[in-house]
């Protein structure tokens, strides 16, 4: 408000000067009012009209100054006062067998939305097409008034199931909620199963309570720097210890090995370090999981400059004769034909781990698809220097990122379950002369398209070997969003109308009728 008055004061200075000049230039004549008495003995309306004729331009300038001050101070934003109800589309919302958090969130959202039409329902979830978190406008189910509770529950149930089928519940980047604010919503109700840790200007509704004591194997990865496996466990029940057993081929049985469980600060994860390969059994509270740990070095048939560099730089890759092809992605010419021939030569082998490395259009950044690591999600290999200098880098200096852990809220999602989810919907790689979208598509136009078949091995093995950063300690993120920037169009329209009206009055009074 102070800004408004400050701007108004500044804008009124020229107006004041104009008034002073007009006062100075005002002509004063002596004349009788005898036949001008009609000007004096006018009614209030006539008086106002006469006064308006004198000061109409000042009046319009004043209004324009007020509008400009409002525009500059941004007091009035011309934003709709609607409320957006946004459902959390992270994986944890659909975790569980019985009534999921999503089910409760939908019920709560429909309950909140039943009152008025000024609310809109959204879902923030993983957008497969764009390869990042997106905002989806949801069409609310029609629940007529007077619907009994059973019918209502059935509608909510079916609606929840429909949401689960249509959308991918995965790690979500809550910064995408800014899009809702950008659309003009001033109030965003975020229904989630977990309250954000940092500050937020969202109205957060937490549905459901904490889960019952759980124990999930979150992830397993091989840390090349320490040459050990890190088994990440996601558990809430610490009253019982976890035992690690290794399969002894000679004994034909599992034997307990000493393994320390270390909690990862800032997360609910615990890590168990295992140094040797082998078959392990981890006994948890009520559950046990079997891991076949192997050092995840994949021999790939590297083809092309970038692929060879990556195979040399990345510790988990080795260049050699393999049916896993790592090839530079080319779009035309001999390179493309060669790539096609190479892919065809793979035949219909079931396990086709193909890394397509696009041509470098950003010298310091290459896009790769380590499909077996990222569940077909696009991931970025951040190469700190240009490829020409890659040979001089020490091995292991390149890091693989899946998503920005700083902005990923649901970092603790046990991806192993996602693996099984993907198993239910296997997607085959196909090629008919052109790369065709049969699976994931990526927003980058030149990044190419790849699909990937994920098949469960008979033996248990770490299926989502991920970068360590993925489950690193994440600091609390402030989910404070900027309301929509001021919408200047209405101001310009108002100013245009004011100027035109002033011009019309000017013409009217100058020309007369």
């Amino acid at each position, binding site marked *: 408000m102070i800004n408004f008055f400050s701007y108004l004061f500044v804008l009124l200075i020229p107006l004041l000067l104009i008034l002073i000049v007009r006062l100075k*230039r*005002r002509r004063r004549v*002596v004349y009788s009012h005898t*036949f001008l008495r009609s000007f004096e003995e006018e009614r209030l309306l006539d008086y106002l009209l006469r006064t308006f004729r004198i000061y109409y331009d000042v009046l319009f300038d004043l209004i324009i100054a007020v509008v400009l001050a409002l525009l500059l101070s941004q007091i009035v934003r011309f934003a709709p006062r609607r409320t957006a109800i946004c459902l959390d589309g992270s994986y944890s919302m659909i975790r569980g067998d019985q009534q999921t958090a999503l089910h409760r969130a939908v019920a709560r959202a429909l309950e909140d939305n039943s009152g008025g039409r000024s609310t809109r329902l959204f879902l923030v979830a993983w957008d497969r097409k764009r390869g990042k978190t997106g905002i989806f406008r949801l069409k609310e189910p029609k629940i007529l008034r007077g619907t009994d509770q059973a019918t209502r529950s059935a509608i909510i149930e079916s609606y929840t199931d429909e949401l689960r089928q249509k959308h991918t519940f995965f790690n979500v980047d809550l910064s995408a909620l800014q899009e809702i604010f950008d659309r003009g919503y001033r109030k965003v109700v975020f229904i989630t199963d977990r309250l954000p840790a940092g500050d937020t200007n969202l109205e957060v509704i937490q549905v459901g309570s904490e889960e019952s004591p759980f124990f999930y194997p979150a992830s397993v990865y091989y840390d090349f720097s320490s040459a050990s496996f890190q088994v990440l466990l996601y558990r809430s029940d610490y009253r019982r210890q976890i035992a690690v057993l290794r399969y002894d081929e000679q004994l034909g049985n599992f034997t307990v090995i000493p393994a320390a469980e270390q909690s990862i600060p800032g997360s609910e994860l615990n890590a168990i370090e295992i140094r040797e390969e082998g078959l392990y059994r981890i006994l948890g509270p009520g559950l046990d999981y079997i891991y076949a740990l192997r050092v995840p070095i994949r021999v790939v048939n590297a083809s092309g400059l970038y692929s060879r560099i990556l195979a040399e730089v990345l510790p988990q890759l080795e260049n050699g004769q393999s049916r896993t092809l790592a090839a530079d992605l080319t779009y035309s010419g001999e390179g493309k034909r060669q790539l096609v021939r190479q892919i065809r030569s793979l035949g219909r082998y079931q396990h086709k781990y193909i890394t397509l490395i696009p041509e470098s259009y950003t010298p310091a950044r290459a896009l790769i698809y380590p499909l077996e690591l990222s569940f077909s999600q696009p991931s970025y290999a951040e190469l700190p220097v240009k490829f020409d200098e890659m040979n001089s880098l020490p091995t292991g200096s390149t890091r693989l990122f899946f998503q920005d852990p700083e902005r990923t809220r649901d970092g603790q999602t046990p991806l192993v379950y996602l693996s099984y989810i993907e198993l239910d919907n296997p997607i085959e790689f196909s090629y008919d002369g052109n790369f065709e979208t049969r699976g994931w598509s990526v927003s980058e136009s030149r990044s190419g398209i790849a699909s990937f078949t994920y098949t469960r091995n008979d033996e248990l093995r770490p299926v989502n070997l991920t970068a360590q950063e993925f489950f690193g300690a994440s600091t609390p993120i402030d989910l404070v969003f900027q309301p929509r920037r001021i919408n200047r169009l209405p101001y310009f329209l108002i100013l245009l109308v004011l100027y035109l009206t002033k011009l019309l009055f000017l013409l009217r009074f100058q020309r007369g009728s």
Partner: protein
Amino acid sequence: MISIDKECQTVCRLFSKKSIRAKYPVYVKSENPIFKKKGTSYDLKNLREYQPFDDLRQIDWKLYGRTDRYYIKEFFEEENERFYLLVDTSASLNIFDLQYYRTFIASIAYILLKLRFTINLVAFNYRVQETCMNVKDEKNISRVLDFLGRLEFAERTDLVSVLKSVGNRYKPSTILLFSDLFDRNLSPETLSLFRRCFMLHFYTAIERLNLPYSEIEIEDRELQKTLLLSYNPLTRRRMLRLEQEFLSRFERRTRNYHYYRIEATANRVPFYWQLLESLYD
């Protein structure tokens, strides 16, 4: 310094040559002879016996020869018509060129005196302020000039009240009204009190003010009010319409009502001639 137009003498001389009527005085005719004054006209008033205080020259010697008695013949008084010059001295006259105004009145007065009329000057604003009565002969023009020189133009105009007052007090038959007529209540019907009325309207047209298209403050010194207007073509048109309505109230001529609108830049001499023409009409 009030002057008289030098053309006045010429106007009088030419008008005297033009019309023989101007050589002879206008007689007063009264309905009731009782109130007629005794004088030296040829109109017999009375015949009576000589009294010791009578002038011997008035004895009718022919009658003495027939009757052997002294008789005196009395005639009615011969008198020129008295003109009342009503001079508006309200504050609104300040709009006009007062020098022009005074000169005009002085010149008219001179012409009338030259033509051997008796003039009475009455200065007024909302009431009669000052009078200068029974001015006869052109030699007394200095009285008129002094009178006009003393005038102060102030206060409001109340023409209706003043005309009624003059009509009741002096019962003039012919008046010459010098005014700007800035009185809303005035109508030509008000002037029916007088047998003949010559209305000399001193008027400054709005267009003469050369107002620019901007804000103007119109000050009325009579009302002590100021009217703020945005002077633009629309306002100008409205003001001209009102002005026309105002002027059209007076612009008519009948046998007894003569209207002359005089603007400050106008040549005065034609008005003198027209006035004399109307006077002897």
